[in-house]
């Protein structure tokens, strides 16, 4: 298991490894040669890529998981279909929604998170190690999010259900398997609507630009910052506020660099890969910051938690209490974001604090918009300059007080 884990780690962090890029080139060249729908073609080639990069077991697990998940969705669709005409349809609908939309991904997700919180138990039980490794691979946070997005699209929004091979390509794309981004099911299905975008010289240039920027961010700027701040082969630490501030900048270059490389590969092979970062340190409010930092997670939360919940609550409670509907939706969205990172009290508190900060910003903004002086151009310019400092200080303080130690533990 240890050897396997080590191989995963080596392969997953290997944007500097020639082997990874040979696989990317092979995927790009193989995709147009295979007949059939584009999602199916990518699903097939992706399995081969997973096999080359992480071993044939990984490809088998990805396909097996996709078959099971597709089966559960098909069953749910069947139950939902019956629900349209049969009096007992409501119960069937509720059961299937609970089964697929909540229980199935949630079970795997919680299992994985618990295994992360109790490594001693996993290490002491050889059989548990194997089972938990398997579940950990299946329920890896990003795969759980993709499952929820797919279930939401297929069961609620009546999107087409893809075949298991295509599903494996959506849930476990080889270039987005480690740290996202969270790709969208509806975008993935749209691949079948037309031919792959042509790889012109201009697109090739954009691809090169994305990939070189990503590698420069992650391996040059991020790593140099880490080495200068903490030393070579020294563990990163967050003893002081300044340490956390450096770590915050390091996390940006590391994660944004990784995401940018994924974006470039997605463009290269014609697979929808969402943008994940857009100059977050230029944001002038915390609310704006989270529309620029880990954007694909923010978009997932908006699509699958915040907007549906807010709409539901406004319909239920009426327009006069719309503000409370918004606050409740915000609260659950942030609690989810907190616990998605880790099942811990610290991350729960992080979610609560962020709800409060975003809500306070909304109150202040609404109040200020009513006054004339707040809309003066000079004041707007001043806030554009001072806002990023406020965001950086608040975010670093929250990270330092609540979660940085747990982030470093990962």
């Amino acid at each position, binding site marked *: 298991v240890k050897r396997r884990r080590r191989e995963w780690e080596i392969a997953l962090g290997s944007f*500097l490894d020639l082997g990874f890029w040979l696989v990317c080139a092979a995927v790009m060249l193989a995709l147009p040669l295979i007949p059939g729908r584009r999602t199916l073609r990518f699903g097939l080639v992706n399995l081969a890529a997973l096999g080359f990069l992480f071993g044939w077991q990984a490809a088998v697990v990805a396909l097996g998981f996709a078959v099971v998940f597709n089966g559960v969705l098909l069953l749910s669709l069947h139950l939902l279909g019956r629900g349209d005409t049969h009096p007992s349809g409501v119960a069937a609908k509720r059961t299937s929604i609970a089964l697929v939309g909540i229980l199935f991904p949630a079970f795997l997700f919680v299992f994985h998170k618990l295994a992360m919180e109790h490594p001693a138990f996993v290490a002491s039980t050889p059989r548990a190690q194997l089972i938990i490794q398997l579940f950990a691979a299946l329920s890896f946070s990003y795969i759980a999010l993709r499952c929820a997005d797919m279930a939401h699209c297929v069961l609620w929004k009546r999107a087409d259900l893809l075949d298991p091979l295509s599903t494996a390509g959506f849930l476990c794309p080889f270039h987005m398997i480690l740290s996202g981004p969270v790709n969208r099911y509806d*975008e993935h299905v749209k691949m079948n609507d037309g031919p792959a*975008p042509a790889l*012109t010289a*201009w*697109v090739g*240039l*954009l691809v*090169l*630009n994305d990939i*070189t*920027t990503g*590698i*420069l961010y992650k*391996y*040059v700027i991020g*790593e*140099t910052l880490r*080495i*200068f701040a903490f*030393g*070579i082969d020294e563990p990163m630490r967050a003893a002081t506020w300044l340490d956390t501030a450096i770590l915050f900048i390091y996390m940006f270059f590391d994660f944004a660099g990784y995401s940018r490389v994924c*974006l470039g590969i*997605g*463009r290269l092979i014609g697979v*929808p*890969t*969402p*943008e994940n970062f857009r100059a977050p340190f230029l944001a002038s409010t915390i609310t704006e910051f989270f529309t620029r930092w880990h954007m694909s997670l923010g978009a997932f939360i908006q699509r699958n938690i915040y907007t549906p919940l807010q709409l539901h609550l406004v319909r239920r409670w009426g327009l006069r209490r719309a503000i409370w509907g918004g606050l409740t939706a915000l609260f659950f969205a942030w609690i989810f974001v907190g616990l998605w990172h880790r099942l811990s009290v610290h991350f729960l508190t992080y979610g609560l604090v962020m709800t409060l900060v975003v809500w306070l910003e909304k109150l202040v903004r609404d109040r200020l918009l009513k006054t004339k002086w707040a809309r003066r151009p000079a004041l707007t310019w001043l806030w554009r300059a001072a806002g990023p400092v406020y965001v950086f200080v608040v975010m670093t303080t929250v990270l330092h007080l609540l979660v940085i130690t747990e982030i470093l533990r990962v």
Partner: protein
Amino acid sequence: MNGTTQPASRGAIALIIAWIVLKVLLIVLLAHQDVAGFLYAGF
């Protein structure tokens, strides 16, 4: 998908190519722990 795919002017293309070449040079020179370590020790 993924922002603009519209071709740009010749000047913009030349600028992007120069930027890519600069990044590749920086990566080749610096994206290696030994090089970063050498700089760190020198610093």
